[in-house]
């Protein structure tokens, strides 16, 4: 993978959530991941069927704003999603690693954004077998995955209140995102001002050099 992990992730509610989840016991996270996987297999078996031609169907999914990663083994009959700690390596060799912020990865999973566009804009980074990545992207994109609905479907009539709770959570999330953006802008404002003034000085210098008569420029160089 190109290494966006070396860059600092953006300040976001998911990043803060990641800090909050750091002490969470791994078995609890693993149970949640297994539930999500079971829901995906129940509702979207075609995703896994579309991958059947691939030699290696293991992927490492790395949400850069969370303190853990996912090892996806997409081979039927029993695909699995394992939680890995930050320094933990997958138990089997993976075909490819996909890195991005959690919201970007969820948008991709639900087909709300174009994977190529995310990649071209550098919001997503990929390392390993690009053929496998393209196959996974195509398979996921071909299914109409709606994560919340897929997870709530087994709850039947109890899904209603849960849906309401999630909607409220979503609103809180969006507000937190706006507030954090304001905070980020306030924190970087002094540095940004300094950068702007340096940039303006560089532009002036460029112009001065460009306007110098050629002879003088040659003599000086």
């Amino acid at each position, binding site marked *: 993978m190109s290494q966006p992990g070396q860059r600092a992730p953006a300040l976001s509610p998911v990043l803060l959530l990641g800090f909050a989840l750091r002490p969470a016991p791994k078995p609890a996270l693993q149970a949640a991941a297994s539930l999500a996987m079971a829901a995906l297999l129940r509702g979207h078996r075609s995703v896994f069927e579309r991958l059947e031609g691939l030699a290696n169907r293991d992927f490492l999914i790395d949400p850069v704003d969370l303190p853990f990663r996912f090892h996806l083994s997409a081979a039927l009959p029993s695909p699995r999603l394992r939680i890995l700690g930050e320094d933990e390596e997958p138990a089997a060799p993976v075909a490819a690693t996909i890195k991005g912020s959690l919201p970007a990865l969820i948008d991709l999973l639900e087909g*709300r*954004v174009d*994977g190529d566009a995310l990649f*071209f*804009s*550098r919001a997503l980074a990929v*390392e390993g077998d690009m053929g496998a990545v393209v196959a996974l992207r*195509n398979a996921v994109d071909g299914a109409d995955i709606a994560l919340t609905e897929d997870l709530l479907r087994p709850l039947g009539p109890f899904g209603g209140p849960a849906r309401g709770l999630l909607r409220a959570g979503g609103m809180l999330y969006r507000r937190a995102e706006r507030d954090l953006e304001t905070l980020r802008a306030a924190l970087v404002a002094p540095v940004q001002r300094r950068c702007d003034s340096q940039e303006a000085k560089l532009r002036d210098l460029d112009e001065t050099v460009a306007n110098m008569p050629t002879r003088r420029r040659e003599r000086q160089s």
Partner: protein
Amino acid sequence: MTGGALELVCPAGTPASLRAAVDAGADAIYLGFRDETNARNFPGLNFSRDELADGIKYAGSKGVKVLVAINTYPRAGNPGPWRAAVDDAARLGAWAVILADIGLLDYARQNHPDLRRHLSVQASAANAQAIKFYCDEFGVKRVVLPRVLTVDEIARINDAVEVETEVFAFGGMCVMAEGRCLLSSYATGESPNMNGVCSPAEHIHYEERDGQLVSRLGDFTINKFREGEPAGYPTLCKGRFRACSRDSYLFEEPVSLDVSNILPDLMKAGVTALKIEGRQRGKAYVAQVVSAFRRAVDAAARGEQPDTADLASITEGGQQSTGAYEKGWR
């Protein structure tokens, strides 16, 4: 041929993309079977027979036509899968098949005379004589023109032939006559015509080196992108190479073809249909491009100047070009 409202022919790599394209305002959808018979034989992509049947039903319910691309060349001694694809497209009620091989065109004409035959861009018919040959011999009703012609050249072809023409409107820029470029074969052993893919994903590697994103195709470094610079797919013709001690895009920059601002000219040139490229792209892309082009085509039909500025975010390298149509690079 005379100018009129342009038909919007849109890509679908999966049933979800088909529904997205239909809902976004496509007039027709083109797609392929999940095998070597079509020129986008990518893993995880394309349609099973059952999916095609469902797709035709969904599209038909909204008045949208489905075209099946069977546009690779049958392997010597094994025409079976290609003929079966034509038979199944006819049986399931496809509006047309898009073919390139003359043997297969003949098979379709003999066995399914009522099934519309379109000539794939893979056949590279780029002059009136070649097009007339396909029409006279195989009853071709529409020709997809290679992306190497100017608008004037297209107008002259349309004046000289009776058949409908379809041109590429948006998506990847292939700067050579289709199927006659050997760059991909040279670097990877796989070619657009035989394997249905140029610069295949299996041969691509991205890596971070000294703060730059380096893209490679096979053993060749194709490009390096600075931090924050929009990246591109390492297609060989869009690589940045060193020549005369200068790094530059020798053939073409990583741009997307976009004809939205010359739609009125294409109408005047007698073009029947616009093809949006991208069966390998996701449904979000398909929905965005198709709805933008729906608006643009409708505006052009009303005599207004179309505007698709909102397409910039999904173009390769964040740049658009009218390619050969305005002869900028030729």
